[in-house]
């Protein structure tokens, strides 16, 4: 996220944003100046002129407020359009980078993070523009009256900015003191209350109350102390700023009485000094926010760049596969090693093993969803040539098949309209036709992911048809773990094992009926070597 990109989003509007941000502080100061002129005019009893000026002042004030409102709209429009563009880039990146992305993390990045940086970064830059404008116009207005007023005002501003730093250290100490007192209080609550039953049994409440009272008193005293320090600071600040504004007023009075400046100066000095000090203070705060948002800003920028990882060029439909030296190491140090397997075209293989032996992991390695720590998977096509597989030709029916918000047909074709005509025969074959006819709008029924209107078995059938319509020659199935889903799996099994596809099926619970449908069984054993 850069200022440059923000500008480029709509250069003309951005210029307008900068203009309005600088314009309304100027209007503020124009009104302060007008007030001075009015005062002088009244002093000289130029009444009609004064009333005219009051009317102009009201007009300027209205322009000021409406400009603020306009700025607000313009900025939001620019920021929102920029956010949309940014989200588009990030989504593209997340799709391309082949990495896993947690849903909650993606949600956070695309909403909160972007919003936070919009406010902490771009809005802060706008604040800086406003503050510069406030400072410059206040400076000019004072200078217009008398350079001495300006010098004293600047001196006041500097002192009012430096002064709080003097007591700052002690204030920080007091704050730390509160937090440590609070910690002690909580710690003592924890220690004594964990034996509450025991204290009650021996009626030792009096001691409990006494101990806790002592610690709560310490916390309360720390709070009082901090307020004491804060108020001391307020008094010191007050004393110094009173003396300065006293000086300023005396100077203004003297200049007025000696006709060096007009009477109206009296009115503006206080306001101008306020604008000088607060604009600098706000600028420092805005700069702090900009600095603070830098790391998040960089993270967002990184995830909005084009991903360097691209999906490998996929060629050919695989029909058979072999694995070599596959092993997988988990972050907790556990390591799975897999036997080399060789699965021939059209073979129906049953994959069994203890829980934790890595059946699902193996399937995910075959699918390319997990990269193995060692070893590789080699796919071959009809002609027996080594190929980089087109993964859309490898069907995968997981324990919890993923559906997308779209119609049932869309979920089968994966939004590829050309495949739609091929669905009907497949639906007949997988015996999904009856299910379809039960839906009010048939294949065009929209899937509602919140209120699942689709059963587990129906989901699996949809995903199976998805695999078949994409002409997958290898189908990997992870058996559902619940009993209801198992029944559906068996129906599906009967279907796929009678076809020409190569099938690898993970069975979590095995029965003989299932076993006889397969050509052979691969049994994984959990290996105990850790590290």
């Amino acid at each position: 996220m850069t200022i440059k990109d923000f500008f480029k989003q709509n250069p003309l509007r951005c210029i307008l944003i900068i203009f309005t941000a600088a314009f309304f502080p100027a209007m503020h100061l124009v009104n302060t100046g007008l007030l001075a002129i009015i005062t002088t005019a009244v002093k000289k009893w130029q009444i009609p002129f004064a009333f005219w000026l009051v009317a102009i002042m009201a007009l300027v004030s209205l322009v000021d407020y409406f400009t603020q409102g306009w700025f607000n709209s313009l900025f939001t429009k620019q920021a929102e359009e920029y956010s949309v563009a940014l989200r588009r880039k990030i989504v593209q990146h997340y799709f391309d980078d082949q990495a896993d992305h947690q849903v909650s993390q993606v949600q956070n990045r695309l909403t909160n993070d972007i919003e936070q940086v919009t406010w902490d970064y771009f809005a802060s830059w706008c604040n800086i523009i406003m503050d510069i404008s406030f400072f410059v116009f206040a400076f000019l207005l004072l200078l217009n009256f008398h350079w001495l007023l300006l010098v004293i005002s600047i001196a006041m501003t500097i002192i009012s900015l430096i002064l709080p730093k003097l007591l700052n250290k002690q204030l920080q100490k007091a704050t730390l003191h509160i937090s440590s007192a609070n910690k002690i209080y909580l710690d003592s609550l924890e220690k004594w209350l964990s034996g509450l039953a025991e204290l009650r049994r021996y009626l030792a409440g009096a001691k409990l109350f006494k101990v806790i009272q002592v610690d709560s008193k310490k916390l309360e005293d720390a709070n009082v102390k901090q307020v004491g320090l804060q108020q001391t600071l307020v008094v010191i600040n007050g004393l110094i700023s009173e003396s300065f504004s006293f000086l300023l007023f005396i100077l203004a009075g003297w200049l007025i009485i000696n006709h060096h400046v007009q009477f109206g100066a009296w009115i503006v000095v206080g306001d101008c000094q306020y604008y000088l000090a607060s604009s600098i203070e706000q600028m420092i705060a805005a700069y702090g926010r900009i600095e603070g948002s830098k790391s998040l800003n960089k993270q967002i920028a990184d995830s909005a760049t084009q991903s360097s990882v691209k999906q490998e060029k996929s060629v050919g439909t695989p029909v058979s596969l072999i694995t070599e030296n596959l092993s997988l190491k988990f972050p907790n140090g556990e390591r799975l090693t897999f036997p080399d397997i060789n699965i021939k075209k059209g073979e129906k293989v049953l994959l069994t093993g203890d829980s934790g032996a890595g059946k699902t992991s193996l399937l995910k390695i075959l699918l390319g969803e997990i990269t193995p720590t060692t070893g590789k998977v080699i796919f071959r096509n009809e002609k027996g040539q080594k190929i980089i597989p087109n993964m859309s030709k490898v069907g995968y029916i997981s324990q919890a098949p993923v559906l997308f918000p779209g119609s049932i047909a869309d979920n089968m074709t994966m939004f590829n309209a050309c495949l739609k005509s091929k669905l009907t025969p497949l639906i007949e074959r997988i015996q999904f036709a009856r299910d379809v006819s039960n839906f009010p709008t048939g294949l065009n029924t929209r899937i509602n992911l919140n209120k699942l209107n689709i059963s587990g078995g129906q989901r699996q059938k949809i995903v199976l048809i998805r695999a078949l319509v994409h002409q997958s020659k290898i189908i990997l199935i992870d058996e559902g773990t619940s009993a209801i889903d198992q029944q559906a799996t068996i129906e599906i099994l009967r279907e796929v094992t009678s076809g020409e596809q190569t099938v690898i099926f993970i069975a979590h619970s095995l029965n003989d009926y299932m076993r006889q449908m397969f050509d052979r069984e691969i049994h994984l054993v959990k290996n105990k070597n850790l590290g």
Partner: protein
Amino acid sequence: MSIKEIIRVNEPRAILILVIYIFSSFSSTGSQYLLKYAINAISNQNFSNFLFWIITQAVTKFMATALLAVATYKFNQQMQEYIHRVRDEILRHYYANGQDKISKIENELSSNMKILTTDYLEPGSIIVQSLLVIMLSISALFTLHWSLILATIIVAIIVFLLPKIMKKKLSTATATAAMQNSELLETISNWFQGLTELRRYHVFSKMNKELDRTSQALAQANIKKENLHGIAIGINGIGNTLGQIGIMGYALVLLVNHQIDFGSWVIATSFCSNIFNGLWDIVDAITSINSTKQLRDLTGKLRQFISLPQVVPVNSVQVKNLVVEYQHGEKIAYPDFTINAGDKVLLTGDSGSGKSTLLKVLLGELIPQQGQVIYQTDNGQVISPQNAMVGYIAQDSSLFSTSITDNITMFANNLVEKVPKVTEKMQLSADLGNFPAGLKTQVNLDQDNLSGGQKQKIVLARAAIREPQMLLLDEATSAIDSNATAKIVHELLQTKQTLLLIAHNFSPKLMQQFDYQINLQAKEGAK
């Protein structure tokens, strides 16, 4: 929580705070008023007169600042003392209740008290201050010209009503934006949870289209909301312009008609802004106070005094048809049994057979689904478990970070003289010899300066010193070596106490010393 209570914490101080608030408000409005004389002095070209008034003005203004600081400090003292009382009352309530989680208690005593301080007590003081300033500003305006008050009231009504014009539209737009935001979140969730599947089938464009659509809908909703907000800023600006420039114009009319002097004209608007700002502050404070309603109700309930149940010493117990059901549905049915006065009983059974659970029921900490536990005193009076005084040593009894003596007497000073004897009986004397401070050794829960066996001996001594008529022990010697265990058990068996003891590692010889055993069996398929 009420103003009365806060005042009652320290009445003289409360009065002092109010007096200082009054003086401070008086000085701050007064200093604004004094400017009038300084201005008039300049316009009369009278420098020395001007100097006098400007010095008086500066001193008054500084006084206002200093007084307010003192009042704020004193108010804080009052507030913290009040919070101290509330904390103590709440702790007493939790103690008597005895059922709550530590984290809940900590939360109530720490963060909830903090919220009440900042969102209830402090806004309360702001209301007092604002009311004072408003009252004084009204009086000041009155001395300038009565009609200025009328003008201020009219403008105040307009200023408060203007935001209402956009309020409904704005809140609808805000709700729409919030809805679009959750829709975007949902769309992200729907598509990203199948990311690998989408990649396999190269379905980027569809996903991108859907996300882009909701992303743009959110952007549009936000833009609409902020457009309305922008208009609201402008409309509210009309009110502010009226407040600042309108009042000034009106005062100018008064000046032209010679109803007020030049200095009054200059200062009039500042009193109007005092009133406006004061009103806004009060509205904010009330909003904040209202937001703590639930918390105050809760705190009010927790401050109510509840008393501990009365307990009576008992020496025998009868158990009939007892069935306990756990939350996850498992059921334990116990055999009927009676333990007579002075019986020494060993409770055995496999793990999971419900030994500890039985003790909890006997102690009244767990209410059984079925059956009865009937205690009797030595003169035959029937007592319920909640009111029975029964000694109990848990598997993991707590020690407190204080001396070993205190841990044994549980702070009952009249028991101190019995401590050496009981430590001897409970085989703790040898361990104490290793500590330089002996019985005065402080238990350190963070550094864990005692062994598991030593801790158990202390807890045994704690129970033994009170010589309860009935004592239940749950694996109370599990960390103590078998030699010492035998001696301790032997000591316990010598007493007249009724004893029920869970243990699993006793030697057969030791087990024989008990009068009888109750053996619990884990039942299969008790679901």
